[in-house]
């Protein structure tokens, strides 16, 4: 039973990494939001499984928050924003998609090396799950760095959050308070970002970051 528990947790963590790569691969906004919903669903499944294995009922609440908020509410809200602001449906990247994925593999390798060196003596699957969580975090960061569109950067930020929650749920004894605060901050950040997007769009007719960059005052 314990072996199966480890295996399923391991598989779900690996699934998160796989879906992060799928996020990097998308080139259309609608598909991107759908895959992000999938990302959050896999996160919810992983947290729920951890709740079952660790016998920690408060994690079920976290899973439910992840499912309701990040898998259903936020993607549909972002879809509405995309529609209302008439943002480009195409995801513009700074580097090619192939190159982004190659850097992604290198980042996963880096996180594996780091985690396996730092956590000597912990059980092997736990180490790999931490490595996967760090990888999801780094891949979310990579997505924020290589996308020009503000909405895709927001999605990258969200997947970064998911990686944090994955790591937190893997370790035992993470209290719910932290979860609620994280969820709250996400919600607030989302409202603020949405507001800003609306204002930016009104002012400058575009949310493309390179266009906005030209308006910075201290540009040399």
């Amino acid at each position: 039973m314990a072996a199966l528990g480890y295996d399923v947790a391991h598989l779900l963590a690996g699934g998160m990494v796989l879906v992060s790569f799928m996020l990097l691969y998308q080139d259309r906004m609608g598909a991107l939001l759908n895959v992000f919903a999938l990302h959050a669903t896999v996160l919810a499944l992983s947290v729920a499984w951890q709740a079952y294995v660790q016998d920690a009922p408060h994690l079920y609440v976290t899973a439910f928050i992840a499912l309701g908020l990040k898998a259903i509410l936020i993607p549909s809200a972002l879809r509405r924003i995309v529609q209302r602001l008439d943002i480009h449906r195409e995801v513009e990247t700074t580097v090619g998609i192939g190159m982004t994925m190659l850097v992604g593999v290198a980042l996963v390798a880096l996180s594996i090396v780091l985690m396996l060196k730092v956590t000597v003596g912990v059980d092997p699957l736990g180490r790999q799950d931490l490595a996967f969580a760090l990888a999801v975090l780094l891949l979310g960061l990579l997505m924020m760095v290589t996308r020009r569109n503000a909405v895709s950067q927001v999605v990258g930020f969200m997947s970064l959050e998911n990686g944090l929650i994955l790591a937190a749920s893997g370790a035992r004894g993470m209290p719910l308070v932290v979860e609620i605060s994280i969820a709250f901050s996400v919600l607030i950040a989302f409202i603020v970002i949405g507001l800003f997007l609306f204002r930016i769009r009104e002012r400058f007719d575009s949310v493309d970051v390179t266009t906005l960059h030209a308006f910075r005052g201290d540009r040399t």
Partner: protein
Amino acid sequence: MMRAATLQIGQTLLVLLLAPALTGLVRKIKSRLQQRRGPSLLQPYRDLWKLVHKEAVVAENASWLFRVVPYLIFAATWTAASLVPSFATGLPFSTAADLLAIVALLGSARFFLALAGLDVGTSFGGIGSSREVMIASLAEPALIIVAFTLALIAGSTQLSVIAAFMTSGEVGLRVSLGLALVALVIVAIAENARIPVDNPATHLELTMVHEAMVLEYSGRHLAVIDAASSLKLLLYVSLIAAVFVPWGLATPESAPSQYAIGIAGYVAKVAVAGALLAVFETTIAKMRVFRVPEFLGASLMLALLGALLMFVTRSL
């Protein structure tokens, strides 16, 4: 000894006879999903019979290579297909070539087909061959790296040993296997010229890859090439089934009833795979040609990630 030889010959003939049926099944299910009745399941056999009896029309400036290539492709694909365990492991011919050799045999078939596309000197053959080698330059490395991952998990590159290892249950749920499965499915779609990479039923030249290379073939040459394509599809399906769904495979010590179960299980697996392929092809649209390298690049990256994980965690 006699038993082993009979079983090997049986497997070789089984894949040859079953291949057109798989193609027919995929076409039938696709038609049904598109609200058509579709051709009968036996239509591919009838098509092959008809083509073989027709006179082959060959271009005036085609060389001897053009006429020999269909048989070479067929031979390479059939050899590779008879090496993949379908209903039993440990058959005698399986020690002659392992998974890497199977990948390379498919590579030779593709090499000769691309040459045949260039032989007549038309622009359609050129477009088919150049796109085909672009797709192959990414799909074949992905396949080799998937072979690495499987070899590292099972401790061998022999398909029989890999299949036996997967059946034994020592494996557990591994992320590398999942990544290898995704990569292998993507490569299988690309190599068999299926939607979203290529359309096997297209009549528009600019969307062709495989069809453009065989545009000049007719009669028995075309029949042999079609048989080879069906064999290739069956090969990939058998490969995925033998590695990821290996239950029901008979071993060298099994009783004869076990072989009957193995054959029945194999036919069932092939049918299910054909149905899944048909559903997948119907629900997804064909990609632009230059989106395909990104698609295959993703498969290569996933395969590389799977192999990397195996390399690193092997000693943990």
